[in-house]
């Protein structure tokens, strides 16, 4: 029934020092559809592919606002994500009430990290089956964090999680150096292009299956662009701008790489 004797629960080490239950939970993340996040010096963007169970059903939400300065993208078990999302919302609200400021993004991410770690050390608990990309802005500027079921949280320049996300990550690695200086629109386009890399053959980005979320750090006047999710017709122009642009990549000649990549 089990692959080995050591994967029954999350409180048993294998002789190699691994905890299989946690590794399996990480597999659940790969079951979810792909989400991509990128941070520049001024903005942080999340883009996601939404799935629908069948032709006539609605699309599963992938991006959630947490507080005015933070949003998340999820891949994996949506119900686990909701637990974490509600927790984060409460923490942000509480912090704002107590200190009159927005919660530092790292502090918030560390909180869910600690919460998830507990589930990997106690019998009768299971690790969360969801991975998150947490995007937010605070006094230090824009941030992008990855959260794993193990409780591992790391700050990234750009990242992708979910099904077939490796292709998106390859795209991101290739364009890594450009992101810092990107403006808002360029950043979204990079996000969408990365997303396209991970699409199954003959699937396209459409207004129905694409979500974009973005937040901007304080500008010179101290004004923050609050995290907002865009769906439906709101993302039409962006999708249009990256449609069949294999040649029309932005200045810097990044297009040549695209043909090299082969979907496995």
């Amino acid at each position, binding site marked *: 029934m089990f692959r080995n*004797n*050591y994967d029954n629960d*999350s*409180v*048993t*080490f*294998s*002789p*190699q*020092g*691994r*905890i299989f239950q946690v590794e399996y939970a990480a597999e659940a993340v790969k079951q979810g559809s792909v989400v991509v996040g990128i*941070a520049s010096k001024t903005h942080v963007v999340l883009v996601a592919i939404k799935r629908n169970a069948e032709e006539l059903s609605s699309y599963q939400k992938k991006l959630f606002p947490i507080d005015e300065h933070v949003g998340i993208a999820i891949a994996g078990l949506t119900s686990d994500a909701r637990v974490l999302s509600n927790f984060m919302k409460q923490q942000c609200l509480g912090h704002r009430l107590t200190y009159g400021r927005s919660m530092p993004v790292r502090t918030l991410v*560390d909180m869910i*990290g*600690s919460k*998830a*770690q*507990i589930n*990997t*050390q*106690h*019998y*009768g608990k299971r690790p969360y089956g969801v991975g998150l990309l947490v995007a937010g802005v605070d006094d230090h500027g824009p941030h*992008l964090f990855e959260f794993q079921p*193990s*409780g*591992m949280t*790391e*700050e*990234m*320049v*750009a*990242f992708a999680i979910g099904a077939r996300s490796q292709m998106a*990550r390859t795209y*991101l*690695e290739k364009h*890594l150096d450009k992101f810092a200086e990107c403006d808002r629109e360029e950043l979204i386009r990079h996000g969408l292009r990365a997303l396209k890399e991970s699409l199954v053959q003959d699937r396209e980005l459409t207004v129905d299956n694409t979500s974009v979320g973005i937040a901007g750090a304080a500008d010179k006047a101290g004004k923050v662009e609050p995290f907002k999710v865009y769906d439906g017709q709101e993302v039409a122009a962006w999708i249009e701008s990256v449609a069949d642009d294999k040649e029309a990549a932005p200045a810097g000649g990044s297009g040549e790489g695209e043909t090299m990549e082969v979907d496995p």
Partner: protein
Amino acid sequence: MTSIGTGYDLANSIFSPDGRNFQVEYAVKAVENGGTSIGIRCKEGVVLAVEKIITSKLLKPNANKRIATVDRHLGIVYSGMIPDGRHFVDRARDEARAWRDTFKSPIGTADLASRMGGYMQAYTLYQSVRPFGITAIVGGYDPSVDLPVDGEVGRGPSCGAGGKIPGKNFGGPGLYMIEPSGLYWGYYGAATGKGRQAAKAELEKLDLAGPGGESLTLEQAVKEAARIIYVAHDDNKDKDFELEMTWISGPEGPTKGLHQEVPRALREEAERLAKKALESDDEEEEGKDDKMEE
């Protein structure tokens, strides 16, 4: 691992017939897969360093810190499962706060090591929890002078608090390493993680317990720490890594008794020297004593 499969390794807090607790041993395995951490204790203070393997190019450089401050004057570095380490640090901070609540003064390095050793050990006692998959190194500098009690409003009496033995030194640097079993010892130089063998060999050459520790300045210790991490990384060359270093000096030293990140300029200088030392090492290959020259 001859005993694998006998069934005594399938649950926590179980002894095998020959008196071993397998799950704790397996937790040590998790530590041995992690990046190398070291600590060096010299007369002027303590240096902590860790090798952070870069698992993805997409990680933000220098943003993910692994050495944590506890109270103001203590540092903790760990190898193994990072989320476990975070939990461990959270607990250490709670202990430091509880100590302040009770005694109105900062916790000593030895006291923190003792409490955290106890905490770690408690996770080997029950079937319902697993041991920590980390080995932690705790460094600190206990003040040698009387500190004001927290919340003190006035100058107090002008004469000393008393109770001190003339000629005896109080306070000073402390370095402890806590293992998944809860076992901990004080060290002059401590190393754990994947490259611990090489690192230990290098630490022993420094002769920290003997005259080496007396003569090593804190700045030299920083440079040695960087070099040792580079040496320890040598077996793992295919992967890139980031070096993170912190230090704690006495009240007269560069950190004024606080646990702080090593200033960037010094760290880069130390890394430059470390790379140089490694290169000349490779050329000679004789394995001569490779003490660094200033």
